[in-house]
């Protein structure tokens, strides 16, 4: 399996990233190198092996559905580039 420019263009779209032509070429090359190498995984027999999402078995944690008021809302909003009436302001969502 090789990674081509078209694949990287598609991945960029999925990840909400934009690249110049030069960047596309460079990322295509490095991703192709990396996956050529990672293909060695296909040699490993994994029949009947269950996948591990975590290193240590984890159990679901349940908590009471309590409301804890957050007091530093202004400090949170200070990190936003554009605020209006205590709301995060963004450019228009629907475009022509």
């Amino acid at each position, binding site marked *: 399996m090789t990674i081509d420019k078209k694949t990287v263009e598609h991945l960029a779209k999925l990840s909400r990233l934009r690249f110049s032509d030069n960047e596309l070429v460079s990322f295509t090359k*490095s991703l192709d190198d990396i996956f050529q190498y990672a293909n060695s995984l296909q040699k490993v027999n994994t029949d009947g*092996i*269950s996948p591990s999402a975590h*290193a240590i078995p984890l159990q679901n944690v349940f908590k009471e559905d309590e409301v804890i008021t957050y007091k530093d809302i202004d*400090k*949170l909003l200070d990190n936003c580039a554009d605020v209006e009436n205590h709301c995060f302001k963004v450019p228009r969502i629907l475009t022509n």
Partner: protein
Amino acid sequence: MNDILKLTAIEISKKYQTKELSCSEVTKAFLDRISATNTELNSFVSISEKTALETAKIVDEKIAKSQRLALLEGVPIAIKDNMCTSGVATTCSSKMLANFVPSYDATVIEKIRNNNMPILGKTNMDEFAMGSSTETSFFGSTKNPWNTNTVPGGSSGGSAVAISALQAPLALGSDTGGSIRQPASFCGIVGMKPTYGVVSRYGLIAFASSLDQIGPFSKNIDDSAALLSVISGYDHKDSTSQPNIDTDFTKISSQKEIKIGLPKEFFANLDPKVKELYQDTISILSKEGIIFEETELPSLEQGISTYYIVAPAEASSNLARFDGVRYGYRNQEAKSLVDMMELSRSEGFGAEVKRRILIGTYVLSSGYYDAYYKKAQQVRTIMKNDFQKAFSKYDLLLSPTTPTPPFSFGEKSNPLEMYMNDIMTIPANLAGIPALSMPFGKSNNLPMGIHLMGNLLEDQKLFSIAKKIEQILGFNIQNPYWEK
């Protein structure tokens, strides 16, 4: 140079109790050292002199009243800049978060503050902890005090340098694939990654959540165990943290017979210089009664492939939150929401971060999920099983920390070549086991670390055996920069 700087954290603690030193004096000494050396080394991205001295004053009042100080209380510390500090910029060394000021403390920071440990500043790192040289930082690379043409390792390069250049007696780093242990090796100090879940990740800006773990940097093993005792413990804000663990790691246990396995899979990749030093070290330790045996863990050969699928997959998902809406860098010219998100992410992230997002997006996308992500998760299971088998026979597993000595700036421009540097350290993150790097020798006057891996939740045993090895090897951590 001020002799205070050479003291270990435990030595500083003792001198507080005997009133030989005040906390303000010690804190000031390290702050002065930072201001004298940071222009050259670039290990700190921000310095918090005022709050550090305020904390020191509280400790000095306790000392004046002859009140008992807690373990490491009053010992200054440096913090990697991916742990949230309330009111202090936390940047992940990225343009994306260059102006981000958290409104809350990470759990580790809360513990450090509650223990009155003056926070000296935040340390430089590879952007979002993605890198092995601290070269991907938006704020420029950090220099290795052993030789300033050499990288300090990464991603926690700034924290490692802080210890090695005597800018701080203790530091915190985070380790996702070796980001504490590899820079510790390159800087000739001790760096430890605890068992997954021993330290809360709450407030640590996530890279790969199933692999990330916070851990200590120090001059020696005793300081490392003491700092882990301060920062560890269950946290209801991190449901992956371990409940019911003994958080006193300073109790050194001794055992009659120590049996250490040497994974064969790592031998093939060693630089000749590293190999020679490694074999010499094993023969020194054998003479002191430690039993060594070659062993096989076949899945270790798949460590890099597995990691560079699992970690980017988790990263691509974790970094999706950086969209310019609520916090982080925002492009101000965009005319639509989607434009704003795309331009903010494209301008806010550096190349290595983008590469990992692309890899992660690819392995999680339909058609490739089973072939890559699921396959890597299955190999992860096999690796965990290999380790469990090995630890039924051996107390620890040992290898060098890195396959090569520290390298120069720009030497590893090919990403895959850079990733290969983590071949020895990655498996411990995939299996969740504790591991540490401690200095064991030098090549061309550059330090190299030896890597010890222990069984799950046997962090204390790891420290105990490491301490014995430290005593036998007696490595001198002093580097040329100490004279500056």
